[in-house]
């Protein structure tokens, strides 16, 4: 209990009041056991609802969000940012699909060229022979004339 007892010059009222609260203190000492038990139960209940623990959970949540924010930007987390992030991810996905499709085309083109070369009667080494190439080009010029 924290009765005020350190006043330098207590007034008559203060002294009277102090005497009265000393008497009142006895009333709390002699409370029936069922009431003190109920009070203890209420205290337990109140402690279970202490704000501190809810705050601790919120702080943990905020900490995680801040950590993610550190990686992706401080404004990560708001609804607007989520839309922006979704848009960016969509654009990235489209670009990835386009690049994949282009690579596939290139591979298919090379494969078709290779198969054409391999199915030809002419051996592939003939195509890199300079004499054969000049003969082909002169032959083509003759045909045009």
């Amino acid at each position: 209990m924290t009765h005020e007892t350190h006043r330098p010059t207590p007034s008559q009222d203060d002294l009277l009041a102090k005497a009265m609260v000393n008497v009142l203190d006895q009333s709390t000492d002699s409370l029936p056991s069922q009431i003190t038990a109920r009070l203890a139960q209420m205290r337990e209940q109140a402690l279970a609802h202490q704000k501190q623990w809810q705050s601790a959970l919120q702080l943990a949540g905020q900490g995680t969000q801040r950590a993610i924010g550190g990686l992706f930007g401080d404004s990560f987390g708001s609804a607007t940012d989520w839309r922006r992030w979704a848009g960016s991810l969509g654009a990235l996905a489209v670009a990835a699909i386009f690049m994949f499709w282009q690579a596939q085309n290139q591979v298919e083109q090379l494969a078709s060229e290779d198969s054409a070369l391999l199915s030809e009667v002419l051996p592939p080494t003939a195509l890199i022979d300079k004499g054969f190439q000049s003969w082909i080009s002169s032959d083509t010029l003759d045909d045009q004339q």
Partner: protein
Amino acid sequence: MATPRELDAFLANVERRAYKTAWFAVHNEENALDIVQDAMLKLAESYGDRPPEELPALFQRILQNTIRDFYRRSKVRNLWTTVFSALGGQGDTDDEGDLDRIERLRDPNSEQQEQPDAALEQRQMLQILENELAKLPARQREAFLMRYWEGLDTAETAEAMGCSQGSVKTHCSRATQALAAALKAKGIQL
């Protein structure tokens, strides 16, 4: 920020006086317990993260507000009871309440006779003091209990009551004088 242990210690220290304070205001055991429970929960839920030194004034403010809320609800309930009693011609509830109150004020404890004279005198003084406290105007009682029983200073009491420090001093002085006069009238000198 108050730790659970600090909050527990604070509530354990204040709960009995809080119960008595509520009892002085509402004169009913169950209602007084309900008020204290509400006040404890409100303190823990809304201010459980405050520093321990702020808890006494906050708790007193919550307790007094909860008592006022109880008065307000009772007023509305009594209004409807009066209306229905007038319609139905049955007014037993209030009479029972009054009888209970008189019984409580009388309430001679059976153990009293076994106590020595000094203890009996002390018990009677306590009984008279409690009855006189219950009769005080609400604001005077609030100021007196917060200032002297809870040990809040004038500024904290004023903040908890939502009034000036001058008003607190006036309420405290009037309450003390009224209690002293009532005790003196019954032959008790402090």
